[in-house]
């Protein structure tokens, strides 16, 4: 065995050398997204958050498309066909900048594109996926409704047949990118159960209203979708979709990316706190030298690295085709909570500066409230884990 005293001191930014096990290709993808995020996103993100919007979503979509991040883990149709780990790394590096920007990518790639990729006809895939991968078209995913969140099976949006057409009526709520989308994947109940529809947003009867006054995920557009007698041809139906399991399987894909994203947000907060603690002096010394601060930093480095290991392990399982959806629930439950703890401690280390947009910590902390809510709340994933280990469902 090698002499542990000779091992190199750990890198504070990757204490357990989690990234040491990445392949060269995975490292290249990580470095590319990290470089892109640092140059193209980080300088503006605080302004976008402050403004409560993304000023030029089409330009952003195009640059994400050029990078190849939209649907990067899907095969064919202009998608890169990268591994699950590579996709996770991209989410991690994007969310280290802002959860809203990672959400943009999750919704486009893992929700809207994945739904079409999994359940669409060959014609639908060819019509939508290449242009969505390129960032020329923006997609959204409408499942949640005003009265139907954690229990999406209770949705009221209906699709009824009229001759060979479908007619959709209902309201979707909290839909990321809804008012900037070219295409909405909308879930509705039919006589045959829940089915998915590809709805061009210029269809008569379709409208979208932006949600204002959010205090979280502000660098992201959130909308209400109103479907008022939207008439669609027969081929708007996603033929492979059947039942609630269809949208839930898309959510499981996006949720996997969120696990990694949370690690990115946590790492960014920890890094900011480490920098701040080293330079901020009180009582004549850097606050990093106080035991209470060091305890916080120790808790943070543990949370960040444990979360990073969890994400990577899920990725390896997924690439081996062995990742169960309850394991993704484990990841979301554990990693988002870890990120919330880290963000909160990081904010406290920043003192008053920590409540401003000059520093990333409160922005991340606020974003993480959304991250803990969407794609299954913390409680829902606790129930999912409880069910998995006991065999007893406590949902209803």
């Amino acid at each position, binding site marked *: 065995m090698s002499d542990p005293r000779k091992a190199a001191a750990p890198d504070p930014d990757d204490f357990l050398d989690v990234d040491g096990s990445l392949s*060269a*290709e995975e490292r*290249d*993808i990580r470095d*590319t997204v990290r*470089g*892109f995020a640092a140059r193209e996103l980080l300088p503006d993100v605080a302004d976008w958050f402050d403004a409560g919007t993304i000023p030029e979503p089409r330009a952003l979509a195009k640059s994400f498309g*050029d*990078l*190849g*991040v939209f649907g*990067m883990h899907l095969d064919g149709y202009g998608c*890169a*066909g*990268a591994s699950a780990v*590579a996709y996770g790394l991209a989410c991690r590096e994007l969310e280290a900048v802002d959860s809203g920007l990672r959400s943009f990518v999750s919704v486009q790639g893992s929700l809207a594109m994945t739904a079409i990729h999994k359940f669409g006809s060959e014609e639908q895939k060819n019509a939508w996926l290449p242009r969505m991968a390129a960032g020329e078209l923006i997609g959204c995913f409408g499942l949640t409704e005003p009265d139907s969140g954690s229990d999406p099976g209770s949705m009221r949006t209906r699709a009824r047949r009229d001759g060979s057409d479908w007619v959709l009526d209902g309201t979707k709520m909290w839909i990321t990118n809804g008012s900037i989308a070219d295409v909405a994947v909308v879930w509705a109940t039919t006589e045959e159960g829940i089915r998915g529809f590809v709805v061009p947003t210029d269809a008569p009867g379709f409208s979208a209203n932006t949600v204002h006054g959010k205090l979280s995920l502000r660098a992201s557009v959130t909308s209400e979708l109103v479907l008022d007698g939207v008439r669609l041809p027969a081929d708007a139906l996603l033929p492979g979709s059947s039942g609630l399991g269809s949208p839930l399987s898309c959510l499981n894909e996006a949720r996997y990316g969120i696990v990694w994203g949370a690690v990115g947000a946590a790492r960014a907060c920890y890094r900011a706190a480490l920098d701040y603690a080293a330079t901020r002096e009180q009582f004549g010394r850097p606050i990093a030298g106080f035991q209470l601060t060091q305890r916080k930093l120790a808790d943070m480095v543990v949370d960040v690295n444990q979360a990073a290991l969890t994400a990577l392990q899920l990725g390896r399982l997924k690439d081996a085709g062995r990742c169960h959806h309850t394991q993704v629930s484990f990841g979301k439950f554990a990693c988002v909570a870890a990120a919330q703890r880290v963000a909160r401690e990081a904010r406290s280390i920043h003192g008053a500066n920590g409540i401003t947009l000059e520093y990333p910590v409160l922005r991340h902390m606020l974003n993480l409230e959304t991250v803990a809510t969407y794609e299954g709340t913390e409680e829902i994933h606790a129930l999912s884990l409880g069910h998995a280990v006991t065999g007893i469902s406590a949902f209803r």
Partner: protein
Amino acid sequence: MGVQGGWPPAMNIVVLVKQVPDTATERKLSSDDKTLDRAASDGVINELDEYAIEEALLLREKHGGEVTVLTMGPDQATDSIRKALSMGADKAVHVNDEALHGSDALQTAYALSRALGRMEFDLVVLGSESTDARTGVVGAALAEYLELPQLTLAGKVDIEGRAIKVQRLTDYGYDVVEAQLPAVVSVVEKINEPRYPSFKLIMQAKKKPVEKLTIADAEIDAAKVGLANATTETVDFAPAPPRAAGTIVKDEGDGGTKVADFLAEKKFV
């Protein structure tokens, strides 16, 4: 030397790519032989070479043809080669031999010229300067070895047929210089905006051909390269002294005068 002629030929472009220590990390010289300790810091593509790669890719998009990366460097240089291929280059040649360690700028240019002698090309594109050694002479020396025209400090490149026209950036504007292909062009960062590698290309990169050459393969004369035969010698080195604290001038009505005095004292004015 194999130079491709004919019209209208697809352009064969060779981009020279040097791996340098990341400027964000601290650089170290090794105390044994006063050469750069390349293992001590992460290697990245010399920044200006990213512009050279971009320009080669743009020219390929316009004129067709192939872009080949040529790198001389140790094993770790494969990381930079992979990155260049991920940006879109078609193939690479990696000259790697223990005997090259410690080669100076002239020897580097000689070795690169030997490797180029085995290749078919219409154009060689390189950065005008590296961020580590910063001699800025490789392009010129290389053109001499190859007996080809050199067009330096290019801010814009136009090719029509076998004619190449370059805007050569100067302190006062630019010169327009022209030559016939084949030629050697060194670029400055005004020339373009390097692209990010795309994921698709990242995943294709490992399938692209990378030819490895020893000095024997490239017919490089061992007596003309390496630290022992270098034409220059590093006599001594010292770490940069820590920056002295700045002087703060408080404006009490005489701020302007104080700043002027300071500049005069330091002989800046």
